[in-house]
Structures are given as structure tokens and as C-alpha cells.
């Protein structure tokens, strides 16, 4: 992800454009492959591209999209929308985490993990995605952003291996 894309995403989040318009634009952009091609294509002239934006996208988003396309950076739009979503979630206090498991944990266990995350990372809500990963052998692995809690047999074996190699 380019720093410029991060800056555009931040600017979009800080702008007065409504969330509804952003979501609508995102949906339109992601749903149509030919539209993405046209916006990203260098052979399409700026006037035609502006014309398409005006006809397809919500009014509030048109200025922003025209600006991004005028610098031939339409390919960054998916990253821009991603950053926008991330900032929105941060503001709302929504934590996104992934729980990799071998055997499906019961509801109480999941609640306990969510409670731990809310307490540790000071969030208001947790969006926990459950993914089965048999390569863990047993136990689970919790990933939140760049932070990882490894309570799996694979992780334990890795730790033991490192200890033995160092010995």
C-alpha cells in the first residue's frame, strides 16, 4: 500500500462526504470490472472519464473521484476505501480480530476472548472472524492487526525448537 493511498484514504475520512455516499461509490467501483478498467486506463481522456464519473457515481463523491483520476491513480481506489473503512472502525471503536482454531470453540470461550480483546485494546465492539486452520495441530491463534497470541501446539513446538537450537 502506497503512502499516498493512505493519505487519500485519510483525507476522504476527514472530508464532509457522507458515509452513505462513500459506501455507494465503493459498491459501484467494486461491482463493475469494466468501470474499473475505464477509470484506470491511460488512453481514456480526462473529459470522458469525468463524464463517466458524473453519470455513475453519487454527486458527493464525484469531486474526490475526479481528483484521484486526474492524477492517474484510480488503481489506488480499493486501498483508499480500505483505509477509509479502517479509520471509520477505529473511530467507532470496532476491533477486528481473527481466531484461527482447530476444533470449533464453544460460545462461552468466544465471549471470553471478545471480553479480553475489549479490555486489552479499549474497544466498544469486537468483530471476531473464526477460521479453521488444522496446521495449528491443537489450541488456537488469535490475530488482531499485527499482534498475535499463539496458544497452539505448532507455536509451542516452534518455541521448543528455538530453545533446543540455542542450547
Amino acid at each position, binding site marked *: *500500500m502506497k*503512502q499516498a493511498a*493512505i493519505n487519500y484514504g485519510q483525507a476522504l475520512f476527514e472530508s464532509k462526504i457522507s458515509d452513505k455516499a462513500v459506501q455507494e461509490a465503493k459498491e459501484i467501483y467494486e461491482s463493475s470490472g469494466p468501470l474499473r478498467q475505464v477509470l484506470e486506463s491511460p488512453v481514456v481522456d480526462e473529459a470522458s472519464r469525468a463524464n463517466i464519473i458524473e453519470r455513475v457515481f453519487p454527486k458527493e463523491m464525484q469531486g474526490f473521484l475526479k481528483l484521484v483520476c486526474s492524477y492517474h491513480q484510480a488503481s489506488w481506489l480499493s486501498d483508499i476505501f480500505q483505509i477509509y473503512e479502517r479509520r471509520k472502525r477505529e473511530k467507532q471503536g470496532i476491533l477486528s480480530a481473527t481466531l484461527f482454531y482447530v476444533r470449533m470453540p464453544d460460545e462461552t470461550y468466544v465471549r471470553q476472548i471478545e471480553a479480553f480483546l475489549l479490555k486489552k485494546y479499549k474497544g466498544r465492539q469486537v468483530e471476531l472472524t473464526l477460521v479453521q486452520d488444522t496446521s495449528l495441530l491443537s489450541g488456537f491463534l488469535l*490475530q488482531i492487526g*499485527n*499482534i*498475535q*497470541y*499463539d*496458544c497452539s501446539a505448532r*507455536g*509451542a513446538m*516452534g*518455541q*521448543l*525448537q*528455538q*530453545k*533446543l*537450537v*540455542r*542450547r
Partner: protein
Amino acid sequence: MSVIRSDEIISILKEEIANFDMVTRALETGSVISVGDGIATVYGIDHAMYGEIVIFENGVKGMVQDIRRNEIGCIIFGKDTGICEGTKVTRTKKQAGISVSEACLGRVVNALGAPIDGKGELPQGEYLPMEQEAPGIVERKSVSVPMETGILAIDSMFPIGRGQRELIIGDRQTGKTSIATDTILNQKGKDMICIYVAIGQKASTVAKIVSTFTQNDAMDYTIVVTSMASDPASLQYIAPYAGTAIAEYFMKKGKDVLIVYDDLSKHAVAYRALSLLLERSPGREAYPGDVFYLHSRLLERSSRLNEAAGGGSITALPIIETQDGDVSAYIPTNVISITDGQIFLESDLFNSGMRPAVNVGLSVSRVGGAAQTKAMKKAAGSIRIDLAQYREMEVFTQFSSDLDAATKEQLQYGKGLMELLKQPLGCPLSLSEQVLTLVLATRKVMLDVPVSKVKQFQKDILEYFKTEQSPIVQEIEETKTLTDQLMDEILEAARAYKSRFR
């Protein structure tokens, strides 16, 4: 090679598993986005420190060398074959370091401190960071104790003190490594710990050096740190820092350490390769802008500590290989300016049979004079000036028949001096032998000895002093001074020997 039985392995494993306590803590992870040429770009480790060790999913370690806004560049300490896009990378929050203990003595280790001599594993020692700050001015003491190389040409004219950094510079095949290894051999019984750091050397060369040390019982006080030519550039880059970390361990215990970096030209080349792969801007000769700092921060760690700080010292002998005698190239000028003097070796001198091929005019020792013993200082006297005069007059040798007697005598004296400064490999001279040789030479006792027989005469007369004039030898070794009376005694004994010789 130590042998470990299978039942011992099983018992070790059982013990380790029984005592194993899994620690679950928050680990900061990232994933590899690109890898190649020993460099991995990792996305996601936001709080990585410069110089921190990271561990890849397959157990290979790497070091953070480049921190960008959203990604980090790591140099990989090992093969990059098991690392691919998406490989998980974990922070260790530990700076790159090396485990050092007394057990390292007599061993050959790689740049990460792992033994490679097949003599079994090393016990876990103190973990010392490879990159450490150099001692400050308060902790330092001026250089005043000599570090004898055993080479007459060096000890008499370019003395090296404990804590000094003396560069050995010259073209290929001029005897740079030989000077360093001879110096290590000469440290036997002198309470000095030696570290030989081989950077980008052939494995056969390192094996040969190790066998020379072993044959001369020098491995008892020596550690060899190697990063072979086949090792990745990252290992070649950290090898001298690892060697210095080992040296610092001993220095802080109050010991005197001699460290040889063979050679820093290859170290600079390895760093250039890494820097270019990390997309840093190339500068002069394609080296990065911080190549001066690369060597200055390494050599600044060589020092002599005062008693309060431990009282040890690190004497550094960095080696630089020049191309066609060009000392004005980028790396040679950098290291010349960092070090406290240089011993310049010349191909022409080497090929003319002058070994060690020290160029007296271009070599210098900036701080070693203070460390020279009084006996050596007095004995060496004007030898440098005499040699310089001889070199100027050497051109007249072809007109020898037309020269006056005084000039002829000066030429003969110079020739004799040049002959005396020749010294074969692995034959270091003790302080008394050097002082006696210099006294006899500068007082022109050997003037009437034919040049071709000077070396034999020197050998015989030194043997005579050793066997029949042992009080003189003993006095020089013990007092390390040369009184006028002692000088007269030496000359008297030499005259007596000469009359017998005839």
C-alpha cells in the same frame, strides 16, 4: 570432533520437554511481501527497531536494516530459500548479538557465534550486542604499553601500543595477512587474547591460518571469527562487529585483546551490496553515504580503558587491500584517516625480496611512540632517517667506483640495514634480540660484514649473546632500558665475538 550418543540426545530431549513451559505473550508479527538476494521486505511490523532481530516462520533470523513508513527491510542471516511472499515474521525485541564466554578461546566460530570447527557446541555465555557504543573519553586512557609484533621493521620504526588502531595496507600478495598472523604468534605468553576476523575469505585460506595457529600453539589464546566468501553478504557485514563484541567481553574483564580484521575492503564491498539491494543511494565508487561511519564506529570501539572502567584494551589491526598501490581510493583514505597510523606494504619491495615489504616513507605510527620501550627507542635512534638517506643515495650505487669513501660507507650501511630488516615468516624477534640487532647495526658493528652474510652474522651473534652473554639479554628484558654502560658492554661483547669470528 565430540560425539554425542543417541540415548544422550533422547535424554536431553526428554529433559527439555519436561522442563518446557510455554509462554504465550503478544507477538508483533508481519508478513514478507518480497524477498531476494538475501533481503526481505516485511509489511506489518510497525514498531521494529533498527538493528533488531526478527525471526522468520522457518526459523531463519534476520536483522532490521531499513525502516520505511509501512514496511521494513531485513537482511537475512542464512539461506532465503524457505522464505516466500506471505511468510510470517515475528519481532524479538532484541538487538542482534552474540553469546560470548571464556569457552570461545581456541575455537573457530561464524559471524553469529556458532562454532564451525567440529569441536562440539559452545556453552551459553553472556549475550552481547554486536553494535555497541564506543567507550567515552572518561573511560579511556592514553596508549602507553607496547604491543610487540616481533617484526623488527615495525617494532623499531612504527611501534604499536595496546589500544592503538594500526592499519595494514597494501596490494594483493604483499604479505598483509602474514604480518597480522606473525603478530598473533608473537603474543604467546604475553597475556594477550587474539581475535582473527576473516571477512569474505576463502575457506581454504582460513583453514590454513587456523592450522598455522594450531601448529604454533597460538589457538590457546586465539578466537577465529569467520564469514567465508560463500556466506551471504549480511554475515560478512556483521562479522567484524561480532568479533569486536567478543573482544569487548574480554576487555571489560581487564584483559588486553588484539583483533585483526582481514579485510575491511571486503567488508565495505559486502555493505555496498546490502545497501544497493536496500535501495540506498549509491555515492562514490557506488558505496553508500555512510560507509565512513561503517568503519569509524567499528574501529572507535578499540581503546584502552582506565582502571575504573576495567583496565583492558583492544588493539586493532585492520587490513585494507589496495588496487595497484592506489591509497587515494575511497575506502583506503577513509580507513587511513580513522586509524592511528598505517603500515604500507609495497609490491615492488616484496618482489625485490624485501620481506616484510614495509615502505618506510609512507608508513607511520601516530601514537605508538609513547608506547615504545626506552630500550627500543634508544636503540632504534635515527634508523628511519638513515634509511631515508640511503634511499636517496641509492641511485648513485651504479657509479660506485667514482664515489668518495664516506658515501660508499653510507651506502654499505644502508644496504646492511635493509638486509637486517628482512625477516622470514613465523620468526618473531624478542625485545632483547631486536635491541641487540639495532645497537649493532646503528653503531656500525656490522659494516665490514658482506651484505650477503649479514643475516647469518645476525643469527650467530644473537645466539652468542643468548648463550654467552645472558646477563646482558636478561637486563634488557627485565629493565627494558638501555643505559650507556649497557650499550658499551654490548659493543665490547660484539667486538670480542668478531675477533673470534675472524
